[in-house]
């Protein structure tokens, strides 16, 4: 067993870190404050291939492994939760199901532009009445000749309105329950496909989170992803991968908060000395660093498992559960160690704590991860 990273992974981390520090960090506070989707950063990431890291080169991607992708999301999240989730939702939820389940024609038409970054991707599963209970889908798809007619709505969709290509789920046969759910690829601009209100969120405020509305939206039947009735499996498989992306985001938020806190406690003076000299500070930092490292081990293991194992649901669930809870705990401690300053928007840890909360909720709540993990034990 070898825990050392290969030279190419070390070099990739250097690249992601340099990019995050130089291009992303300077905008993070403004992106949060203004709730503006960071279009220019996405454009830069597109040029560098960050939007197709684990996609094979023959489909316009970078041909790297899942660990490289996880490290990219981690390094982005260290400085900006918003930017990291844009990459994660696009790659894991938008592109990956097409790579895994798409026909060759669908891959050429949709995966290639997603992987080379000319188009942005998103994923629509959640509905007002179907959150953790994803089987409660109300959106319907009815085959009419050569077209499916989609009716319904999806909520809390990351990259909503900004994305060009959406993988969405709808009931093709309500009587079959989860076996009646199918997956579809829908392009922005398709008549009958509109956007509802933009969510006002606690954190990751620059990421565009929208409601998707389908009103007699007709799509060619070639846009069925996988077979009819196989949508639930496609959604669950996609979320296994997505969880590695969110686990990486959570890891990055925790690691970024730790970095910021280490720097702060060395500068901040109370009672005539830097607060780094106090044992409480030292012990808090020790606990934070240990948990960040444990989270990293789980996240990297899950990323490697995705490429080497047939199933990696449990590894992904453990990584996401632990990393998300560590993100919340470490960012909260980071704010505490910053004292009153940490509660102000002048310091990054305030934003990081708000950003961290969502990692315990989206792409499967912590409770869902516990269900997945315990399900494998019992």
């Amino acid at each position, binding site marked *: 067993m070898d825990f050392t990273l290969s030279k190419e992974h070390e*070099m990739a981390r250097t*690249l992601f870190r*340099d990019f995050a520090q130089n291009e992303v960090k300077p905008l993070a506070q403004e992106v949060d404050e203004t709730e503006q989707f960071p279009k220019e950063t996405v454009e830069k990431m597109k040029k*560098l*291939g960050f939007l197709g*890291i684990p996609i094979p080169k023959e489909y316009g991607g*970078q*041909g*790297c492994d899942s660990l490289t992708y996880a490290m990219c999301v981690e390094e982005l999240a260290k400085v900006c939760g918003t930017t990291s989730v844009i990459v994660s939702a696009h790659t894991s939820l938008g592109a990956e199901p097409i790579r895994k389940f798409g026909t060759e024609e669908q891959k050429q038409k949709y995966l290639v532009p997603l992987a080379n970054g000319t188009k942005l991707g998103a994923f629509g599963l959640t509905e007002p009445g179907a959150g953790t209970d994803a089987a409660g889908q109300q959106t319907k798809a009815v085959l009419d000749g050569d077209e499916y007619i989609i009716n319904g709505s999806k909520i809390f969709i990351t990259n909503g309105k900004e994305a060009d290509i959406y993988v969405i789920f709808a009931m093709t046969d309500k009587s079959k329950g989860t076996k009646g759910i199918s997956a579809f690829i829908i392009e922005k601009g398709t008549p009958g496909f509109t956007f509802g209100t933009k969510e006002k969120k606690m954190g990751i405020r620059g990421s565009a989170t929208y409601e998707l509305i389908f009103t007699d939206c007709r799509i060619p039947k070639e846009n069925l992803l996988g077979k009819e009735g196989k949508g639930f499996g496609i959604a669950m498989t996609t979320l296994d991968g997505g969880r590695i992306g969110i686990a990486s985001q959570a890891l990055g938020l925790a690691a970024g908060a730790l970095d910021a806190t280490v720097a702060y406690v060395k500068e901040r003076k109370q009672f005539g000395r830097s607060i780094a000299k106090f044992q409480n500070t030292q012990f808090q930092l020790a606990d934070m660093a240990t948990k960040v490292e444990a989270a990293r081990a789980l996240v990297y293991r899950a990323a490697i498992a995705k490429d080497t194992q047939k199933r990696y649901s449990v590894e992904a669930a453990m990584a996401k559960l632990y990393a998300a809870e560590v993100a919340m705990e470490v960012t909260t401690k980071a704010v505490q160690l910053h004292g009153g300053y940490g509660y102000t928007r002048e310091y990054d840890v305030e934003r990081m704590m708000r950003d961290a909360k969502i990692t315990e909720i989206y792409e499967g709540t912590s409770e869902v991860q516990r269900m997945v993990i315990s399900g494998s034990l019992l």
Partner: protein
Amino acid sequence: MKIIVCIKQVPDTNEVKLDPVTGTLIRDGVPSIINPDDKAGLEAALSLKDSLGAEVSVITMGPPQADAVLREAMAMGADNAYLVTDRAFGGADTLATSTTLAAALRKIDYDLIITGRQAIDGDTAQVGPQISEHLDIPNVSYAEDIKVEGNTVIVKRQYEDRYHTVKVQMPCLVTALGEMNTPRYMTPGGIYDAYKVKKVTVWGRSDLEVADGEIGLKGSPTKVAQSFPKSVKPAGQKVTLDADEAADYIIEKLKEKYVL
């Protein structure tokens, strides 16, 4: 067109810290980087590749771990890489280094050789021009812009108060200034290729046609009279203030130091 860029692995002097007790430089754990002027030269070569089409090779002389800077250059877009490494080349001054590199360069086809102006760990600015002498090709140093027209290179050559535009026939050598451009980032797929697809050609002593007396310590006429660490200032304190507050802050600091 075939372009060769000579690069050097150097310690990142921005990351060098001072030992607070002894006052000496702490080199342990300091990351190694492509020398900044060389990296600008590489960017110039890659830009020419983008606009005109060119095969870009990189070459370095150094210890085996200098492989890392060649991989980085390939991850940025260089096509080929050559590592000139042997204990026999150790202890070389600029003359022995340029002699060894020239021997290696004679084995590769080129139209244009680009080197950095100087390396941040030596600051001599001698190796580039010396290589051009060994190869008997024209040299234009201190380039702040490089263009190619047909078989000629047009270089904007920097002086303190002006610049010259020099037109030179290829094959030739140009030394690049770090200020010339902002080097591109690597790409994830480029990194993958640099390690998994592309190869670094390694040349040792026996691969080069050069006399024993011209390489390594023996081939180095430079005698170092005295060596001392460069005085390095510790990292400054960064404050973010608006203009008026910043002015007050600076005045206060200058008073603290009895400058005012």
